[in-house]
């Protein structure tokens, strides 16, 4: 019998080494830590949820930021158009505001009120009055429409203002309406509109 055969025949005696007494407990702890820790799993799920929430927050922030950026860009464009020297551009600005803005914007309304009093173009003024009528509860707009009626000389704009204030049932418009009716310089068509509006407001 050679040495290898002898060893193989007595192999079990070569495998008689034993682990130390505290090794079993150490191994069991390790086994549980590696494969049997529900907390670790729930922590993992929690981490997944947190990371998904973080991703969503980032997406929403980016979308909000983009929308905000695009809103600011649009607003600046309208304001620039409202102050443009070209009546066509101002008209474009008024229409863009009318079409795209559902909520009041103080800066734009201020700019529109400026056009209402100072613009020299009839079409721009009429479009401006139409745009301002989108916000009938705005006291500032109502008062400015009344003031504009008192000072306006363009008959087409006067008619637009009279109809608008009549639509708004604005009692405070009676005084300028009376002045228009009593003014000998007033166009007959403007007078008849003013008379009609006065009757409607009184009702």
């Amino acid at each position, binding site marked *: 019998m050679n*040495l290898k055969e002898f060893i193989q025949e007595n192999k079990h005696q*070569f495998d008689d*080494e*034993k*682990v130390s007494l505290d*090794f079993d407990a150490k191994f069991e702890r390790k086994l*549980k830590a590696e494969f*049997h820790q529900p907390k670790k799993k729930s922590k993992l799920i929690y981490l997944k949820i947190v990371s998904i929430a973080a991703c969503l927050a980032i997406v929403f922030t980016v979308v909000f930021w983009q929308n905000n950026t695009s809103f600011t860009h649009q607003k600046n464009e309208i304001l620039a158009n409202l102050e443009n020297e070209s009546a066509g551009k101002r008209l474009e600005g008024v229409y863009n505001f009318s079409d795209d803005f559902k909520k009041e914007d103080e800066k734009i309304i201020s700019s529109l009120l400026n056009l209402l009093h100072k613009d020299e173009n009839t079409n721009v003024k009429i479009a401006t009055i139409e745009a301002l009528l989108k916000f009938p509860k705005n006291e500032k707009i109502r008062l400015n429409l009344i003031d504009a009626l008192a000072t306006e000389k363009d008959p087409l704009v006067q008619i637009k203002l009279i109809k608008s204030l009549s639509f708004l049932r604005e009692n405070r418009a009676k005084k300028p309406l009376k002045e228009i009716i009593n003014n000998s310089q007033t166009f007959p068509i403007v007078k008849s509109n003013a008379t009609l509006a006065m009757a409607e407001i009184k009702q």
Partner: protein
Amino acid sequence: MNTEEIIQKCKQNHYSAQIEVYNSFKNLLFSASYRILNNREDAEDIVQDAFIHGFEKINQLNDDGNIGAWFRRIAINKSLDLIRKRKKVFWLEEKQELQQVEETNEVNFTGVSIDFIKNCINQLKEKYRIIVVLYMIEDYTHREIGEMLQINESTVRNQYKRGKDKLLLLLKNQ
């Protein structure tokens, strides 16, 4: 529970099955690792790593596979990795093989104790001891040992022959 059921349960991460496997083979793995590393603490660390690694990869084992041999192989490979990592042993590559000698009836082992043989093996230089252990006790072929140690087969054969000659000399001088 038979072996097949135990393997299946381990694949399903059953704690009790894993503990049963551990209790069945812990000393087998420890003996194999200790023979290579010659250090009890290192061998215990290897046994722990081998079981954890084995349970992680248990799906690679067929249900009818030899689970003990599978874990033992993991422990031996991890032990050899540790030796390589610590750069404790170098085997110089040898392309020329020494003259092969048939395994003959070298010594009359009557009355030779196993502890004495173990002692003699432990007296060998590490580079011989590891190859002698892998070939004589763990029963791997020269080719398998070459693959495990990442050296060529002729180097294994030569180192084995030298190691065995030294071991026989130690045994004869009892």
